[in-house]
């Protein structure tokens, strides 16, 4: 991963954003636009997070917004092009699939600012990213490492599970960190908690085949339960809702939600959500919009880490009372070590 410098105000640091809202420094208003990946803005995943960031910018910063959902990869180019035509000042693409289209658009429109979620603007080693473009990437593995450790500790059956919607670097990275976290727990405690549904070495594991089939997500979760897992982390967008439904039906099972804080986003399922691996795309989007508004936009990549709060482990919420204080401390300690660089969470899927 590239070194982090000058990261914009972290998502955890809500107050900072808020204060910025009160006083837009450059008088002029701007238009901020988001182009989604396939899946659309209701995918309960990164598109939705980015969209929420956009909507928050509209309501808090008063910027003009525009949005475009892509139905297929064939829509990326024209959607970005439409945003250019719509005189956007900042165009944010969501997903590494948009990389090529975004690089081309950034190069063709030097007056417009571009930001890309989950991918850099660098295609090949040695290429230079355009001056008007900023990558918004996340080292999610750091946070899911903590989740893996916590899950291993909380599992009563000694088995935890994870699955993805499709095998993509942005989903696999969750599982890689999770796997390392479980391993760390085993090494620390001499246990042999198993992770079902993901093999970090082979980079292979359970998949739904898409990010929308809740029924399949539910059934896969039930099969993980049958194999003895009692905690499951679905990295599958909407399909992950199936896991929540399955967990509610199975006594003693828990879910690790991803992207947003599940207990807040799905309050009706809070009772089964142990914690969430948060990837603060909305904050990154919001901050990027704010930086354009304030004229502080630069082309430095933004890398969300535990250190800058771009990724993180959500509070325990309903499980507060069940999580041993000891574990809480261990997690905090691990977080410190990761932030300080003492522990390096490494995966091939890192941005």
């Amino acid at each position, binding site marked *: 991963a590239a070194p982090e410098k000058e990261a914009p105000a972290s998502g955890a640091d809500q107050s900072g954003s808020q204060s910025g809202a009160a006083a837009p420094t450059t008088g002029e208003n701007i238009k901020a*636009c988001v182009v989604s990946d396939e899946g659309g803005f209701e995918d309960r995943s990164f598109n939705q997070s980015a969209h929420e960031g956009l909507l928050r910018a509209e309501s808090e910063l008063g910027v003009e917004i525009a*949005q*475009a959902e892509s139905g297929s*990869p*064939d829509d990326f180019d*024209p959607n970005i092009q*439409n945003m250019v*035509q719509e005189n956007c000042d900042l165009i944010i693409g969501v997903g590494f699939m948009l990389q090529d289209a975004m690089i081309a658009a950034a190069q063709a429109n030097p007056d417009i600012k571009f930001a890309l979620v989950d991918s850099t603007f660098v295609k090949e080693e040695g290429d230079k990213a355009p001056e008007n473009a900023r990558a918004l990437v996340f080292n999610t593995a750091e946070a899911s490492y903590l989740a893996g450790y916590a899950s291993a500790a909380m599992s009563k059956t000694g088995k935890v599970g994870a699955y993805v919607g499709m*095998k993509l670097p942005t989903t696999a990275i969750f599982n890689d960190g999770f796997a390392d976290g479980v391993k760390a727990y085993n090494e620390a405690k001499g246990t042999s908690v198993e992770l079902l549904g993901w093999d970090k070495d082979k*980079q292979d594991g359970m998949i739904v085949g898409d990010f929308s089939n809740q029924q399949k997500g539910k059934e896969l979760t039930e099969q993980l339960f049958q194999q003895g897992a009692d905690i499951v982390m679905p990295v599958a967008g909407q399909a992950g809702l199936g896991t929540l439904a399955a967990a509610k039906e199975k006594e003693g099972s828990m879910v690790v939600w991803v992207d947003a804080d599940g207990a807040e986003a799905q309050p009706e399922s809070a009772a089964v959500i142990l914690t969430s691996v948060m990837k603060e795309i909305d904050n990154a989007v919001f901050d990027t919009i704010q930086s354009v508004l304030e004229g502080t936009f630069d082309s430095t990549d933004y890398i969300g880490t535990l250190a800058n709060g771009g990724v993180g482990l959500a509070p325990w919420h309903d499980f507060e009372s069940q999580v041993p204080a000891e574990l809480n401390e261990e997690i905090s300690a691990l977080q410190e070590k990761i932030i300080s660089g003492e522990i390096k969470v490494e995966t091939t899927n890192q941005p």
Partner: protein
Amino acid sequence: MSQAATLEPIEPSAPLEDSKRDNDVPFVTKILRTLFSPSTVTVFFAIISALVIGALIVVFFDPKVQATMGYLFARPEDFFAEAWRAFSGFFTSLVRGSIFDWNQDSLAGAFRPLTETFVRATPLIIAGLAIAVSFTAGLFNIGVQGQLIFGAIFGGFIGFFWDLPPVIHVLVAVIGAIAGGALWGFIPGILKAKLGANEVIVTIMLNSIAAYFLAALLNTYTFHGDGFAGKSRIMGPNAQLPLILGPSYRMHLGVIIAILACVLVWWLLERSTFGFELRAAGANPEAAKTAGINVNRTLMLTLVISGALAGLAATGPTLGTEKALTAGIAGSIGFDAITVALLGKSKPIGVFFAGLLFGALNAGGALMQASASIPVDIVQITQAIVVLMIAGSEAVRYMRQKRRRELATTRKVEETPVAAPKEVGA
């Protein structure tokens, strides 16, 4: 053997069927005649009214309009202003996105939407032809989606993996795509010919298999190379379809290929012996068999050709616009193409215009969400309503015509005198 089963009463010609073919009239006259025929006028009004319905749906669900509805009686002018804004926004962004964008600084930019329409129509037209060919032979090839994916896999693989000289590379890639689609069409074909397996079932299943196969391939190093899993390497520069209007437009050679494909399919269906066999096998397989046509072979070849066209349709996104494979490379082209083919009545010229219409709606819809914040799903709704309106208006026109004709003759009959002279036989 049973006479009963075969001597059906003659069906009145289906409302959607074309009128008589005439061969003696000059081409231009024919075009003009179709352009201003009652059915063309009906289609035109059906499209317009479908668009109006689509716009009304937009108005109804527009949050600002809904807000004004709360105090509709207090300040109706707010409501009408907002409703008009939403209503006109639908149309202006549709036109700006698909034909001409007057907000652009340059004329070149203003016409870009029109080229977008063509670019988006390209795969729809070719895939529509694939469906049309199978329909003509009485087969329902739901598998165009899967065949398209296989075309993309083959064509794409050749495009990014091989390194060939200019012209040759793109040619080989296109042929590869055709072969990939044909292969995926061959499977239901051979299963139907040899084992009688229903092509609807087999093609539905092959769609999913193709999609998962592509997803699996995209996780291999061969496909993604040093990039990320889920997206293949970029097509070699020589494998990309050349841009025919220069680099500022996405309009690529595929547009020409689509037009050529229409001509080719027209020739194949209407002027070739194979087309004769195919139409015969579709219209009456028993009679075709009796006339010496190998119906099983014809149906199998039809699915192969249909698949080949589907594979060709994949070159648009694969080698023309996307230039890389992803799991969603086929979008929903294979399914939208069914509607395109049906709207075009399985005739190449009809498919061409239906594809253009859908391409325009897609292009317009994309701008609609960008400029007017209308969910892009409205495009699908509008497309569906267009087809329903056309089907409905044709049905109504057909019924009215029938009634008029009957009335006319009845009147004539009534005027004749009552007396019926009788000869008396021995």
